């Protein structure tokens, strides 16, 4: 019997070796002077050549947020090997960086946590002469979280708003307040994000999303206590999955998820609530003490050029704060450009941006928000 067990194990081991062997296909490389990736993408030459002596670049970025061609091209063009770690929340990224001993060269924090990182001395000041500042849309520069872009340059932007399935929701919501409609109970997905969901309740009450007034927060808590029993699912990782699978019919989600859900099923509609959506922006920063700042500058500069950044339109349907990329797409990738410009999810109407709200760090009130979140979810 023992013998048989070993045979079975041996077969499994052989099978896995074969699988590994088959996986390692031919990678891209230098073909007749042109640098081509494994997928056949021809790497453009850098518009501004930055001198790089480092051999490595350590990226620490959001999950599913970097086109694969960028990494291959950067490695081919600059001869730098890239190490790539991922995170799925700003808090996770912050906890890892603040624990010290990090060796990351670049990370992608969202607006609200940047102030905190600056105060903690976690970010390097940027040298604008090494960055393609002219490529960025001025609407996404010089924002309140980093006036003058001393520490950050924009990467992608987006918002959190309402999504619903027009096939199953006969009476669609127009505002966050409409979500309290008893008809929607048991059919909703919400982001598992205390600041957004408590902020939503604050907005329906007419308060600021960044309030630290305990009385206003208490009111928001009581208001949410009515909504939460009707929420079937809290999900910040992939709310679209439950929507597409038909487990829920409407909810609060973000730009990229809404766009993908709509591609799967055009019945999904994304609307900006009358109270205003939650606007956010992810930004490149260089953490203090980054071991390869030269490679970091080269990476931002190279990937920010239109001939590479347009890939974001193909891969990650968010709001593109990069003018050069949109210009490039308009000239060379008309289909993608039209899809981007014609969708209100990516080409956000100006009044929706004007009405939007930005989450900010609330300092001492952070545990209070957390306690409210615990109380809302704790009540049965």
């Amino acid at each position, binding site marked *: 019997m023992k013998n048989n067990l070993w045979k079975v194990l041996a077969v499994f081991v052989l099978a896995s070796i074969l699988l590994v062997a088959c996986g390692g296909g031919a990678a891209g490389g230098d073909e007749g002077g042109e640098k081509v990736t494994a997928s056949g993408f021809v790497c453009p030459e850098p518009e501004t050549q930055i001198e790089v002596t480092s051999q490595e670049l350590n990226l620490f970025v959001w999950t599913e947020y970097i086109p694969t061609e960028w990494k291959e091209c950067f490695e081919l063009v600059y001869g730098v090997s890239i190490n790539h770690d991922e995170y799925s929340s700003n808090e996770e990224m912050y906890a890892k960086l603040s624990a010290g001993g990090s060796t990351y060269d670049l990370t992608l924090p969202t607006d609200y946590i940047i102030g905190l990182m600056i105060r903690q001395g976690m970010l390097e000041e940027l040298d604008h002469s090494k960055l393609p500042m002219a490529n960025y849309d001025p609407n996404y520069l010089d924002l309140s979280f980093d006036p003058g872009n001393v520490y950050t340059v924009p990467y992608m932007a987006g918002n959190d708003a309402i999504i619903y399935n027009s096939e199953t929701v006969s009476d669609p919501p127009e505002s966050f307040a409409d979500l309290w409609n008893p008809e929607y109970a048991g059919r909703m997905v919400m982001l598992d994000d205390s600041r957004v969901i408590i902020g939503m309740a604050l907005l329906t009450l007419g308060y600021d999303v960044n309030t630290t007034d305990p009385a206003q927060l208490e009111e928001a808590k009581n208001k949410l206590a009515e909504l939460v029993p009707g929420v079937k*699912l809290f*999900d910040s990782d992939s709310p679209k999955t439950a929507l597409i*699978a038909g487990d829920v019919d409407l909810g609060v989600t973000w730009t990229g998820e809404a766009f993908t859900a709509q591609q799967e099923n055009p019945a999904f509609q994304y609307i900006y609530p009358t109270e205003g959506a939650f606007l956010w922006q992810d930004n490149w920063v260089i953490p203090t003490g980054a071991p390869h700042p030269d490679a970091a500058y080269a990476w931002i500069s190279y990937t920010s050029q239109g001939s590479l950044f347009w890939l974001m339109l193909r891969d990650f349907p968010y709001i593109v704060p990069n003018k050069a990329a949109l210009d490039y797409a308009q000239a060379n990738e008309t289909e993608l450009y039209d899809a981007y410009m014609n969708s209100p999810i990516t080409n956000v109407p100006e009044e929706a941006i004007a009405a939007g709200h930005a989450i900010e760090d609330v300092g001492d009130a952070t545990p209070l928000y957390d306690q409210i979140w615990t109380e809302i979810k704790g009540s049965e």
Partner: protein
Amino acid sequence: MLKRLRENKSSQGTLLITPTLIFMVGLLIIPLLLTLIISFGRRSADGNVIYTFGLHNYIRILGISTACEGGQSLCFDPLYANILRRSLALAFNSTVLVILLAYPLAYFIARAHPKRRNTFLFMVLVPLWTNFVIRVYAWMMLLRTQGVINSVLGWLAGLVGIPFAPFEMLYTPGAVLVGMVYEFLPFMILPIFTSLEKIDNSLYEAAADLGANPIRTFLRVTLPLSMPGVVAGTILVFIPVMGTFIVSDLLGGRQVILIGNLIQRQFLDARDPTFGSAASLILMAMTLIVTFFYTRKFGFGEEIVAA
């Protein structure tokens, strides 16, 4: 130096346990002490630890408050106590269900022909080759409103011609329990199997010779002799279930907060490591107390080592 070592038995022993000792002190004792120190501290506005000495975090968990409505001087807020109670209840229910399912299976395997025993054990272990989280995702596929189970049931109902409304299974407390039981079942089967396998066949023959029927034999011989396995399995299941929240998050739709969620949130969203440390220590203390009384009552088998 080497010669002395070769002759001295006690220094040989010391040398042998040194790696374990370094491991235990460096990765268990010191972090635990740090957690204890941090739990007495305060949170700064930016979420850093201010090292002071106070019991405020423990008072907050216990829910004792001096700021009461209605002018009382002391009142009780059951917020965190409820979270602890809910986590305990889930862990208890899961463990009991796991025992009820694992025992017959372990019994079946132990009484099976020795030739087939290894195959059965192998089958119990195969699911562990796949990552924990991926197996939970597989359950999500099964339980969805338009998932595998509902589709198959709908198809069958269509064949027979009865109307079928899909069951709402995913994102319910039942789904959480199913997931917990599934994930932790092997950890109960193995120790129970080990203790059942050790029972000498002649004991069953003796019981039969002395006139005991199968039920009596089971209650008086098999069950008492397999208790060490049940105890070991319970410890292996109960302790991790207490701190686990990924199953309840994914299958339960994150509708409730368990003690594991609470602790995680303190280190991430709330950025309050002091309260998180206090909550971790309370969890550890509770688990220790439960295990202590349990093993005191039922004894402590060597099966936990075998498993």
